[in-house]
């Protein structure tokens, strides 16, 4: 009986550990952004991620963009209040980037989306349909994956095109 109880206790502890680990990986974004809900309202990717046409990056939305609609309560969601709290504190929302290129890789949104007219989903997958912020990139970007696409679309596949 005693050994059973000890076993049970260890089991429960182990389970708790797993749950806490799991939840810490669940969402790192400062607020639970729902892409699907925004997408369903007819808001385009470019409304919030605005810079892809001219810059290497596309950018995370500034607080002012959120406030355009969320200045006054729109929904019952508890995270909506956080936006106005950020505004009161005079801070920007500290969005976390999911996709991080290694330092020696040059990637340009302008080249891929602005000029070559790729769809966002090519690299970002169905993020527009996600209801909670994903914790890792929806498309796993490997060098082979990049090069396969470059070969298929007859883009520059020279090493120096990306390794600067």
């Amino acid at each position: 009986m005693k050994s059973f109880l000890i076993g049970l206790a260890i089991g429960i502890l182990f389970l708790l550990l797993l749950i806490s680990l799991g939840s810490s990986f669940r969402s790192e974004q400062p607020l639970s952004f729902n892409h699907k809900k925004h997408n369903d309202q007819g808001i385009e990717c470019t409304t919030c991620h605005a810079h892809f046409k001219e810059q290497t990056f596309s950018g995370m939305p500034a607080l002012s963009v959120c406030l355009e609609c969320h200045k006054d309560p729109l929904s019952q969601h508890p995270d909506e209040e956080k936006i106005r709290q950020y505004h009161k504190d005079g801070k920007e929302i500290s969005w976390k980037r999911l996709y991080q290129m290694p330092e020696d890789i040059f990637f340009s949104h302008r080249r891929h989306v602005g000029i070559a007219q790729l769809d966002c989903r090519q690299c970002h997958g169905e993020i527009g349909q996600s209801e909670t912020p994903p914790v890792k990139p929806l498309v796993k970007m490997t060098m082979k994956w990049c090069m396969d696409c470059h070969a298929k679309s007859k883009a520059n596949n020279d090493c120096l095109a990306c390794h600067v």
Partner: protein
Amino acid sequence: MMHKWGMVIDLDRCSGCQACMAACHAENNIAIVGPEEAAKGRTIHWIELLPYIEGEFPHIKARLLPRPCMHCEHPACIKVCPVGATYANEEGIVGIIHSRCIGCRYCTTACPYTVRSFNWYEPRWPKEMKGSLNRDVSVRKKGVVEKCSFCHHRLLRAREKARAENRELLPDDYIPACVQACPSQAMYFGDLNDPFSKVSELSRERRAFKLLEDLGTEPKVIYLSEGM
């Protein structure tokens, strides 16, 4: 036809002001090492002014020779690299993939023009310069070799611009930082495969020569000799 990028340096026009070196440092995020490290010969320059003495004593002349990477047709550096971190692309530019470099420095030894530098230290800049790094060029880590790339990122930028404007690449679209900065217009850059380009014309001049030509490396940097 594929481009073959080349450079012409007119030594008659070069005043040795080192503006090319300064421009190169700023353009390519080249780390600056301190005086102690420099005394050990551990500075990094993608283009350097080599001093040399011409003639025999007492009739000597001190000269300065700007020396970027020669981007040889038959580069010795590529043959010795054990990991394939350096290669020549279709347009003849000799590039380095820094993430692949293991820092063995065979290439720095093999290069007859000694254009390659090793990163002995983690790159550091004065804090005032933190915001002025060029985002088109990576910052090299400690333990890898680096050298002139003919400002290849500028070629990519130029191609991007030409494509956005729906036109062909024009000769003046792509010019490395050193050529752009030269105040006495001693440096020219262009396509050696185009027989009518400025660099092609100059390369056929009587004054034209290449460094260590007998090695058969066939450099794509051509010099125009002084005082002829």
